């Protein structure tokens, strides 16, 4: 019975990792950019929600509604004025600029909020749990998992049902030809990063509700997100969810054997997939 419980907790944890990863996957899919500051942006989002909660006395969920447009604006500006300048054939500039950004963000957060652990306030709803047949699950992890599904369904709808999604796909396939059709790749990229940061804000909410956070935890979130994306296969959003679940289950199973092995077993599971399926479980046809 304890194993079923472990598995279910692992799957639900995977929802959180899929939320971490969805923004990374979106940005990579559209502009082949890997943002090494992604994890630190999640942590920054958590601090933003925390500030809104403390200053305005809002519920974290209401604070998220305010944080989302702010994060969109930040992402748009970041892409338009900084990251777009790094795109090109050379892989060094985007890597080194986003790595620099990661260090800058970490230290700016450290300066602003100190190294103390913080947590978003929880209420009766977020700490409640319910019985699902043989296992008891928290409402919070369930909500996290549901949000991950909603985000992925939403992104897929956006990609395949809207004109913005068509512009995303066209720019991703061939930015030059897309620009002949009246699309401005620079703005499309900016919108995509804005959207990615909206998802980052959602991920940040659940990060802050689930556990303590401090300015130094960003890189580990980036690594989990990265593992989920690679396991799922580049460019596949549903694959990213499966990848997140894979890491989540590996971590909870590892932790059930020995609490010190939680993180390590996630990494080892990732390396195992890399060994057997270097292109991930659900690779796209090209790239």
């Amino acid at each position, binding site marked *: 019975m304890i194993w079923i419980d472990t598995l279910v907790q692992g799957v639900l944890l995977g929802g959180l990792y899929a939320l971490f990863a969805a923004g990374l996957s979106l940005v990579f899919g559209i502009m082949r*950019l890997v943002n*090494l500051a992604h994890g630190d942006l999640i942590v920054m989002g958590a601090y933003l929600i925390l500030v809104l909660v403390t200053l305005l006395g809002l519920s974290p969920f209401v604070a998220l509604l305010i944080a989302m447009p702010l994060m969109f604006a930040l992402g748009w500006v970041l892409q338009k004025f900084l990251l777009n300048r790094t795109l090109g054939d050379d892989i060094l500039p985007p890597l080194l600029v986003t*790595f620099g950004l990661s260090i800058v963000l970490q230290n700016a957060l450290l*300066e602003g909020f100190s190294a103390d652990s913080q947590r978003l306030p929880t209420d009766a709803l977020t700490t409640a749990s319910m019985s699902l047949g043989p296992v008891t699950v928290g409402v919070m992890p369930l909500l996290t998992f549901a949000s991950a599904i909603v985000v992925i369904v939403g992104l897929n709808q956006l990609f395949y049902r809207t004109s913005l999604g068509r512009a995303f796909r066209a720019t991703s396939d061939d930015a030059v030809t897309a620009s002949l059709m009246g699309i401005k790749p620079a703005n499309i990229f900016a919108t995509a990063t804005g959207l990615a940061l909206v998802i980052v804000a959602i991920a940040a909410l659940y990060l802050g509700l689930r556990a303590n956070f401090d300015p130094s935890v960003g*890189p580990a979130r980036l690594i989990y997100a990265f593992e989920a994306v*690679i396991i799922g296969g580049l460019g596949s959003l549903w694959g990213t969810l499966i990848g997140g679940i894979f890491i989540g289950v590996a971590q909870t199973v590892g932790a059930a054997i020995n609490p010190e092995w939680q*993180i390590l077993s996630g990494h080892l599971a990732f390396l195992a997939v*890399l060994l057997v399926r270097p292109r991930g479980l659900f690779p796209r046809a090209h790239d």
Partner: protein
Amino acid sequence: MNTYVVETRTRASNVTAILGMALVIALILLPLYAGRSTIQDMFFILTMLVLAQFWNLLAGYGGLVSIGQQAFVGMGAYALFGGVILAGMDPVPAILLSGVSALVIAIPTAFFAFRLQGAYFAIGTWVIAEVFRLLLAQWKTLGGGTGTSLPRSATKDMWFVDAIKALLDVKTSAARDILAYWLALLLALATIGGIYWLLRTRRGLALAAVRDNTEAAKSVGVDAGRMKWMVFLTSAFGTGLAGGLIYMQKARISPDAAFSVTDWTAYVIFIVVIGGIGTIEGPILGVLIFFALQSLLADFGSWYLLSLGVLAIAIMLIAPRGIWGLISERTGLQLFPIRRRLKGGQLDNLED
């Protein structure tokens, strides 16, 4: 007679060679006229320079951007501690064990990481470094997660320490610092010399060709895959040696410090980017700027790293070849020239 000569030397490089000799002699003799804190600062500068040169070899010449160099620093450090504590080795020869251990773990690391491209390679190396950190934190005889110190008996009777004490008339602790400094100087000179030599050989030419255009390089018979392995393993070995040396001097280790991504990779990347990636001069200039900034801003805590990050971003956007790149562009100065120029033969005769 029409004799063609292929030359890489320039007048600047000849002057550099002479000035460099003088500088090396001055550095060797430094313990005679400098205080202990200067020796320690120089040790820090030289070891960071070694790490920077090897990261530059990987990223600047090999096109392999690794964020996992702390794996090799940490492994080198732990190999030294393991050799001394478990096998009773002297710390000085144990540094070689550091290099070899880093080389050994670099083989599986490369095997996994080479399955990933570009940015994913970067994060992949980082994940693997994390794996090694977490594994070594499980090694209870070497202190587990909290770490351990080198036993006093081992550090007291280290090779050469007595000789240095007698020679320079200093205390044991100062003699240890001087020994570490001389070893760091030796390692730095061997690194710069070795990389310069490598870049001037056929292999170096092949390496530059792979970096500039992999497909074109393959078409003229360069084995791009083998070049990548060679560069990755070489830089792991050198980084491991530096890791062992750094922790021989610190004499205290913990997994979080030895595998710190900030200390052993972020700083190193900033040094190379600010100084000038893809040149030998760049990391030398970069480490001096880095040290100057650190001395200036040491009291400001996180502002220091913050400004270093901003500076690196600005340089990457405005002057992607770094500060040395700017100097070199303006003046045409090359202290370690690797460009081959054709001299003599008919062209010169036509001019006559």
